[in-house]
């Protein structure tokens, strides 16, 4: 019952939000989100980190003739993603205290619905259930971008929805085909991932029209759009720029992870031969994403767009690590998923803070902000350090593991990715220089002349409270990575081991020839 409670509690909260009086909505939903987070912390007590098996499993029959069950469970891969989902809810609620001015009730309602759908995505073991949650999570985010977004919000929301939807429809076809395959090979139709793992899916190397390659492509495209990987990333900058701050934070911190989580859950274990065969190409796309994202970020005049493109670059690292298919790469990828959530989430919150004051995100209109907002500057610098992976911060650990794994697998790609780190440092530091140090921009000048005095206040207590947990995490995860990784270790080992099992026969065959 624990996981069911975890998934569906936010729906109850969403209903409660509708009943609350207008003035109590914010406080009420903050409290409920904290309750939910504390509830999820019980996982530390209940979760057994020594095993790779699914835990806290619940299974009930749902649509029996098709083998669809209500089937939830948690393992080391979903463990941190679940906690991160519940962790960010109170943060974005507190972070958007003043920035959501209209339809507050609907906003918090959508936020709680989104929580349920995201948790459902991470905890479902049944593939149809996974698909339902995966798809349903688009709706609240679509509303968030479309209702509370910027000037081009409708365009961005539509693009976001249709891109993701179009990708996942082919995945649905593949899931249905897999269900029929279980009926054939295992005797009874089943939509559970566990049964999918047992399948022998025919694969022919070097040919596209065979079941495994086609299904691999269907799943891969669906998740690649969600991640997003180059060249299907174009919805992301639009969505991020137009989304309100809380929307951007959730989108970056959690929703993008659904894609990489899908890689770990479906693509790699389900299609081992195809993953091995096409892995280099996916790694290549990841590296292209790293470099491309960084280069485009470098020329962005808009801070938020810059952070959005940095997301493309960072998620490229995650994909690179995952498809390196060794323990370093996989560990690094999982860690980088959390890092990216924390640091990019924090960056979006920070951008939101300054946007609330000046209502512009143009880099060139700032400049010399360090003098006007010293604490804000320090916070921003710390997050920047984390984002560019300075040793001591969380980003370093993740990127180091990924580069190690990538280098072991493919030296050329590993090296290019390592160069990408420099590009990453370049655009972030340039931006920091222009915004905080460079020549004084119109706002700082205005503040000196008294025109913008009100606008450029330093961070308030509320904003500090919002950012403090993230800053603590940045250092904690950077200095004691084992506190976090130990929970996922057995699952990651298992994931890589099954991969290696498949690699062996192929290698042997090559030797024989």
């Amino acid at each position, binding site marked *: 019952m624990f996981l069911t409670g975890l998934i569906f509690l936010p729906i109850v909260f969403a209903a409660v939000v509708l009943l609350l009086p207008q003035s109590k909505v914010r406080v009420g939903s903050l409290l409920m989100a904290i309750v939910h987070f504390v509830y999820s912390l019980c996982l530390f007590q209940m979760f057994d980190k020594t095993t790779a098996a699914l835990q806290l499993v619940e299974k009930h029959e749902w649509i029996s003739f098709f083998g669809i069950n209500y089937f939830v469970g948690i393992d080391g891969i979903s463990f941190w993603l679940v906690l991160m989902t519940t962790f960010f809810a109170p943060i974005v609620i507190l972070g958007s205290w003043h920035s959501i001015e209209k339809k507050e009730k609907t906003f918090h309602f959508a936020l709680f619905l989104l929580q349920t759908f995201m948790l459902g995505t991470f905890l479902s073991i049944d593939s149809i259930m996974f698909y339902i949650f995966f*798809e349903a999570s688009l709706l609240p985010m679509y509303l968030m971008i479309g209702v509370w977004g910027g000037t081009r919000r409708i365009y961005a929301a*539509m693009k976001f929805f249709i891109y993701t939807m179009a990708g996942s429809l082919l995945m649905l*076809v593949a899931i249905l*085909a897999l269900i*029929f395959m279980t009926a054939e090979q295992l005797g009874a139709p089943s939509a559970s991932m566990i049964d999918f793992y047992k399948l022998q899916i025919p694969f022919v190397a070097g040919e596209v029209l065979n079941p495994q390659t086609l299904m691999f492509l269907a799943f891969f495209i669906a998740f690649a759009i969600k991640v997003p990987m180059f060249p299907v990333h174009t919805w992301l900058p639009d969505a991020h720029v137009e989304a309100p701050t809380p929307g951007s934070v959730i989108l970056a911190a959690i929703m993008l992870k659904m894609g990489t989580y899908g890689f770990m859950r479906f693509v790699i274990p389900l299609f081992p031969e195809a993953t091995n065969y096409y892995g280099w190409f996916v790694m290549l796309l990841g590296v292209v994403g790293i470099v491309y994202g960084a280069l485009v970020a470098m020329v962005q005049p808009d801070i938020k767009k810059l952070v959005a493109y940095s997301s493309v670059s960072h998620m490229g690292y995650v994909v690179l690590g995952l498809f390196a298919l060794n323990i370093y790469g996989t560990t690094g990828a999982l860690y980088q998923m959390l890092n990216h959530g924390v640091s990019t989430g924090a960056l979006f919150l920070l951008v939101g803070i300054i946007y609330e004051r000046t209502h512009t995100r143009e880099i060139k209109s700032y400049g010399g902000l360090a003098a006007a907002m010293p604490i804000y500057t320090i916070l921003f610098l710390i997050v920047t350090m984390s984002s560019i992976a300075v040793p001591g911060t969380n980003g370093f650990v993740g990127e180091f593991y990924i580069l190690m794994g990538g280098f072991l697998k493919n030296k050329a790609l590993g090296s290019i990715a390592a160069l990408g780190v420099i590009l990453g440092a370049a655009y972030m530091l340039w931006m920091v220089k222009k915004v905080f140090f460079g020549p004084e921009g119109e706002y700082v000048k205005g503040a000196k002349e008294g025109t913008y005095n009100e606008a450029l206040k330093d961070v308030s207590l509320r904003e500090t409270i919002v950012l403090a947990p993230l800053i603590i995490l940045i250092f904690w995860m950077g200095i004691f990575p084992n506190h976090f990784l130990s929970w996922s270790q057995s699952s990651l080992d298992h994931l890589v081991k099954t991969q290696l099992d498949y690699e062996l026969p192929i290698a042997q065959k090559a030797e024989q020839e």
Partner: protein
Amino acid sequence: MELGIYLQDISLTIPLMVLFVLSLLPVTVKIFSGNVEQKPLFTFLQAAFAVILTGVLIVLRNTTEVVYAFNNTIVFSPYIKLTTIILVLSTLFTLFLGYRSPSIPKNQYSEHVFLLLSALLGMLVLNYSNDLLITFIGIELLSLPLYVLVGLSGNSVVPKEASFKYFVLGSFASAFLLFGIAFIFGATQTTEITKILSASDQVDKNLLTIGIMAFLVGMFFKVALVPFHSWLPDVYQGSPTPMTAFMATTVKLVIFVFLLGFVDVIRLMDMNVALYTLQWVAILTMFLGNMVALKQSSLKRMLAYSSISHSGYLFVGLISAVLGTGEFSYQGILFYLLTYMFTIMGLFALMCVYEKKEGEDLNLDTLKGLAKDHPWLALAMSIFLLSLAGIPPTGGFFAKVFLFSSAIQVEQYWLVIWGMMSSAIAVYYYLKPVVYMYMKDKESSEIFVKNESVSTLSIVYLSVIMVLVLGVFSQPFLTRILKTLI
């Protein structure tokens, strides 16, 4: 061949006879009271009584096997029982929508009711038929009242034009049906469906293929599959909204239900030739419907094109029923039809709620800012649209899953992939009304006026609940459908 009417023949058709007699009641009352229109509530109750009584009589009849009557021209089976109940239910909904609807002239309400009940009778005959001639009679008995119902509205010219268009093209379709029946008769010397099946071994396959194809073309006209769809947008847009709802749900339902029972005959065609044609009809229908709907600004016209594309999806299911062994595609199609019925009925009921006067066309622009004034109705409309788009957790999602999985089962992967791609396109226009309701503010400050008709609103809310229930608890419905197959 022996002719004669037996007691079991009569008992099988009691619901039809009762419906026929009761359908005359409202007009008879009107004529005998000096051609003065009775109170609408009175007429409405008479009609509702007729429909409900018919439904109850059908429910009460127990069947566990296939029963024939009237010299094998009429057939009754659990499958027919279930589908007939759905038809009766959906007609009852239409009756609710039409009650005090501004688009139906008040002084002709009893005629409206009479025609609606006659159409229902036609549908029952069609559904019960085991002989192509009875099928034809059923279709005509359904179509003729429908032509009038479309045009039955005050002084506006548009519905008359729609009615005439529908009549001309519908007659054309009837001609095709007869043409097909004649060919089938030429090939097999019979019009009885069960005999056609048994006679098929020693017949001229080409003649039979032409006959069945021509018959199917007639049916394609009725459900508007491309390239026989051109009548539909104008007719849907021009008709009074309750009648549009009726055509989009009940009429489509009955034709697909009939075709599903007819698959054994369709299978007799030379599949090497025919399958290719059928696949292209399905693909073109899905794409054309969805592509043209993208550009529509009138809500009704958009739904008309969307209805074309849904015919295409259903036809994919029908193709898999033709190719496969049954069960799966039966479940798929019937579940789809059930979900589709509730969704479309609810959506058109919602449009009735916002129609203030006859002939008013609901535009996307008029929806601006609706979510602010009527949050619940806006939510209902969003749920319907999401269900049409096949987005979970609505019934439309599972409907699509089951339908397309039946096609996967018979390895029609390309059909499924085309279908999925076209539904990805469709998401754009299904979300457009949501954009207008939630994300745009209206220019004027005037508040939306809604029709406080309890009967219409109750259909809206009932449909919403059903769409969600079908999305979450589909199991009992599927079991029910499976039980009817013997």
